[in-house]
């Protein structure tokens, strides 16, 4: 189970549970006036609602009793007006409420998304995507519901409660104070509930995130699941997560049920006590029967606000924990940002001298560094191939150039500028990247190619596609408008890789960073891409991860990466001749003949030929 999620453990101790919800108040600010009107309209609608039965009472006691048809019509008209006014006020309240609540939700969502885009890959490696997703969807709608409805009814109910209690005290001080005292157990029940529910709702939200993560992971690993027929195992794993969610849901239901019933019990018992005491008082002649009736009927108006309290508190706690979760993301500062005096370099001014000076790097939380005091210089226009064993840190090294990760020690300079002194946007415009795994989004081919350069012209795109031998894109059913699947699934590995290469070279970046760019190409295509790439690389500084001689052929020099350091730099043939470690990595000659091979035995020299 992917239970690990360091981000979730940010302690919120010592803070008020509603602290983070309160911090979201500025999203409510644009709607402050509307919210005030809402309250007014809500109170007015309640008042109008109360007035209608009063008018009916008047009708019965007045015109009807007095046989006055004119008065009857007048009062009925008043009742009609009040009724229409009530409906209109409710309409206004709900109408305004709907636009402000969804507007607010959209505003928070946009901010969270923007922040997520600013957070570096190391954050995204650490956080489960389902957890992020559930924050941006489920949690935000929980907050929206509370801020629009829960908060409004909380205020409305409190006002109703206070008004009724004041009226009761005025009606009869002792009994009134007795009713007022019933607020104490109510408050205690509510507080205990709030604490318990806080924990449960947080657990539920985290589990919702876990389930979302499981689902997303399943979608990702669908082919692997199918290939091994592991559907039952995944279903069992999902059932575990769903069951946990179910149990928490039932637990929450139990809490709410107990509290809700208790909250109901308090006014009922108070009513009983009032009845007994009132009856006694009436019997003693302290209270008239009429006063007792009035008192009790007024007291019955308290039932509804108290009954709703359980749900309002539940909604409030859910909103509070949802706000905590959203804040955990918003409060994570982006680790890789522009320095205060960062400069932007124009493409024309860049010669492209890329220097690694004593660069060390370790992943956050990892013990051992991946790169250690590494030195490497790539001269302007030069292409350096990076060679190293599987897992030696080649891809990590490349990711430092567009600052997807930040060097732990040392520095990387471009034409003498520390990369950290350059504006991120400027740096990333200068550096073209093709990753090991060509990431394609489910969008049009065009959009996938011009990712960060919506201004690219059709000719530029055509040239980039031609260079990467990716003209097949024009033959797709809708040309460049064709939506390629998520991860470009409808395309072959080689096609995806060529699109990613075209994306990297689009716009003639000053520095190209290519991670094994030809690995998925067949020999024929590889030769053609190599030829056209060579033309580009003549004038572009490039760092290319290579596993095979065919890719190394692109490079002017080769750097050997071993144990986090560059241990040898030079021409391929020189290294082959002088560096045993390099020879071991790339030599066409195997150190020993693997047993059990069945092919090529009859072809003289054939075995040597079919090795790379």
């Amino acid at each position: 189970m992917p239970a690990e999620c360091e981000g979730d453990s940010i302690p919120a101790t010592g803070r008020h549970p509603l602290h983070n919800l309160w911090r979201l108040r500025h999203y409510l600010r644009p709607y402050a006036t509307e919210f005030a009107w809402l309250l007014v309209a809500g109170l007015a609608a309640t008042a109008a609602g109360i007035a209608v039965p009063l008018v009916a009472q008047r009708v019965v006691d007045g015109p009807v009793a007095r046989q006055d048809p004119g008065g009857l019509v007048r009062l009925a008209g008043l009742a009609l007006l009040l009724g229409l006014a009530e409906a209109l006020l409710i309409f206004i309240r709900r109408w305004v409420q709907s636009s402000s609540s969804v507007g607010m939700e959209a505003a928070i969502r946009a901010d969270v998304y923007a922040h997520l885009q600013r957070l570096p890959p190391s954050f995204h490696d650490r956080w489960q995507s389902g957890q992020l997703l559930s924050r941006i969807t489920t949690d935000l709608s929980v907050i929206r519901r509370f801020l629009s409805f829960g908060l409004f009814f909380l205020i409305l109910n409190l006002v109703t409660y206070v008004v009724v209690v004041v009226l009761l005290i005025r009606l009869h001080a002792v009994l009134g104070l007795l009713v007022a005292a019933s607020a104490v157990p109510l408050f205690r029940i509510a507080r205990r509930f709030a604490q318990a529910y806080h924990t449960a709702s947080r657990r539920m939200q985290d589990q919702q995130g876990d389930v979302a993560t499981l689902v997303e992971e399943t979608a990702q690993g669908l082919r692997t699941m199918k290939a091994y027929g592991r559907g039952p195992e995944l279903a069992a794993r999902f059932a575990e997560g769903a069951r946990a969610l179910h149990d928490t849901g039932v637990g929450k239901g139990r809490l709410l049920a107990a509290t809700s019933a208790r909250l109901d019990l308090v006014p009922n018992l108070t009513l009983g006590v009032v009845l007994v005491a009132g009856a006694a008082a009436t019997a003693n002649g302290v209270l008239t029967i009429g006063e007792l009736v009035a008192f009790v009927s007024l007291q019955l108006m308290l039932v509804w606000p108290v009954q709703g309290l359980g749900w309002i508190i539940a909604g409030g706690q859910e909103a509070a924990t949802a706000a905590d979760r959203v804040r955990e993301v918003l409060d994570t500062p982006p680790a890789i940002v522009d320095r205060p005096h960062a400069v932007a370099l124009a493409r024309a001014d860049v010669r492209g001298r890329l220097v690694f000076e004593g660069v060390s790097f370790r992943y956050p939380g990892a013990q051992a560094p991946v790169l250690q005091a590494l030195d490497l210089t790539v001269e302007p226009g030069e292409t350096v191939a990076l060679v190293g064993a599987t897992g030696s840190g080649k891809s990590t090294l490349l990711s430092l150039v567009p600052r997807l990760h930040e060097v732990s020690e040392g520095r990387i300079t471009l034409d003498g500028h520390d990369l950290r002194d350059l504006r991120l946007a400027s740096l990333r415009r200068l550096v073209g990247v093709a990753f090991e795994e060509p990431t394609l989004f489910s969008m049009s081919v065009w959009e996938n190619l011009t990712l960060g350069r919506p201004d690219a012209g059709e000719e530029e795109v055509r040239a980039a596609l031609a260079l990467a031998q990716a003209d097949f894109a024009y033959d797709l059913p809708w040309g460049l408008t064709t939506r390629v699947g998520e991860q470009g699934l409808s395309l072959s590995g080689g096609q995806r890789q060529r699109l990613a290469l075209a994306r990297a070279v689009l716009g003639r970046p000053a520095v190209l960073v290519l991670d094994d760019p030809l690995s998925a190409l067949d020999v024929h295509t590889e030769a053609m891409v190599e030829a056209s790439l060579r033309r580009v690389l003549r004038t572009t500084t490039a760092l290319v991860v290579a596993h095979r001689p065919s890719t190394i052929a692109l490079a002017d020099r080769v750097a050997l990466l071993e144990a986090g350091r560059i241990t040898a730099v030079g021409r391929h043939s020189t290294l082959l001749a002088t560096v045993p470690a390099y020879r071991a990595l790339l030599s066409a000659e195997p150190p020993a003949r693997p047993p059990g091979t069945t092919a090529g035995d009859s072809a003289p020299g054939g075995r040597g030929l079919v090795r790379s």
Partner: protein
Amino acid sequence: MTGADGDTGAPPRPVPSPRRPSDPPPRPSDPDSWRGIATDPDADRSRAEDSDPTAVARLRARSRVLLRNLLRPHRWRLAAAVALLLSQNAAGMAGPYLVMLGIDRAIAPLRAGNPGPLVGIAAAFAVAAAVEYAARRGFLVLSARIGQAVLLDLRQRVYGKFLRLSVAFHERYTSGRMVSRLTSDLDSIGELAGGGIDSLVLAALSILSVAVILLWLDPPLAAVTLLAFPLLYWLSRWFARASAAAYRRTRETIALVIVHVVESMRGIRAVQAFRREPRNQRIFAAVSDDYRRASLRAFRLIATYSPGIKVIGNVTVAVVLCYGGWRVLDGHTEIGVLAAFLLYLRRFFEPMQELSQFYNSLQSATAALEKLAGVLDERPAVPEPARPVPLPAGRAPGAVTFRSVTFGYRPDAPILTGLDLDIPAGQTVALIGPTGAGKSTIAKLLARFHDPVAGEVLLDGVDVRDVADAELRRALVLVTQETHLFGGTVAENIRFGRPDADDAAVQAAARAIGAHDFIAALPEGYATQVQRRGGRLSAGQRQLVAFARAFLADPAVLILDEATSSLDVPTERAVQHALGTILRDRTALVIAHRLSTVEIADRVVVLEAGRIVEDGPPAELVAADGRYAALHRQWRDSLV
């Protein structure tokens, strides 16, 4: 609106229709057409979802059947819940009645020095309060249990269905939409399950009982009241139609938001490296705004509907007031009756408000349920056989035959036409050919990710369509260059190949494939969490883990599609060394662009445009001076 972009709903945008030769090609650089045109018109939905009215009605009916189906196992618990609710309500009603009784009957005796009646009433009151407490608590617990059980059931059903649906379905549906169905849609059904049943039952109960009382009190007045019903019906009908469409749109638009978030978070490295953030933010703003507007529309509908009900209720009260007063004046009815009538009338219309709220949640949940019903209704394109044919007894020897197989991902673009290929058990075959020749397609057909359009694929003489999935997967494993690691430890990921394998077997597999050294060097060895999408393992290391997984699975037929592309040469050599041993007694289909893999092959098949153009032992083909010989030369030259 037809098809693919029908639900994006952003500002007007050309409606894509199948392109005819005369149509001008859509301009790819149009900033609004970022989603592109899907090759499958049903890309964004399950087949059952369609925009024409009959399809909508059918789907609605299906979602109702689904709901009944989900509730059926809980019908006794539901009945118990309703009984609890009724007793809670009865106990609740007893309170005011007892108060009245106390005032009328207990005060006088008390004055006379007899506290008996008051004590009795107080006791009855306490009992009523206790019953109400217990019944309410019981009802709420029970309804939460039912709601959660239904949700759990539905969640598992939908998830299980997604697992069974074919690879082709998932390729067009996208993972984000699958996530949306299993999270956001279920949430909105959960909201209905969370509350509302009580308001439905109580409101219906009180409306019915009050209607009876009204008719009993004064039939002509009651008839006037009932005139409100056609209006209520008409209003509700309008709301039902409008809100069904509105909530359907919220489901579709939130799915697009989720798809966008999922994809941009997953591709965050590309997003940042290519400074995609501003453009992404704009697209996000657009999809999020679509969702906002869809929700706003739905909220505004209920904002209209609910006061609309209020208007009808209040107007009726005024009319009854007028007409009833007139009747009293005329002496047709008593003043007390009018008073009672008016009081009850309020009790009649107030629950209508709650009903409208419930109806609203129901509409929202139904829209979500429709989406899920659509998924559950989807017929797997690669179905499990109804009557599976067992593979020949014992461990299948693994003879593979393609018999005049025709296949294409799109009907108009066949990849393979009438392909025949016979691989005897135990043979290692290398598939060679340019990109797009159909190598991976052959692998996928054999692994039954897709079924051929015509012809058949046989494993040991049995059509793979007739083999039970579990048995097929035991016999045959496909390893591709996309190496997915699931959340969990390295050991768990290797064990994915054979869940019952012990630690020693897992280590032996890793050792055999040459992955042991790097795994042992990880901070926690085999217990190291690979984290999200194999975060910290390099592509090559992930391929090694995937290889160990396949090795552990120990299938009779192993299909390797570019499975060593990210390995360095010595590691690849080690893997091949291991393969040389393990492939000796099993059938293998090896696809590699690099001919280095070919050395372990007994036979080379060269494909071009979906046809076999050369076939034979590698040495012979090299000597024959055909396409393979040319490829071989070219490749040899590429080695420095």
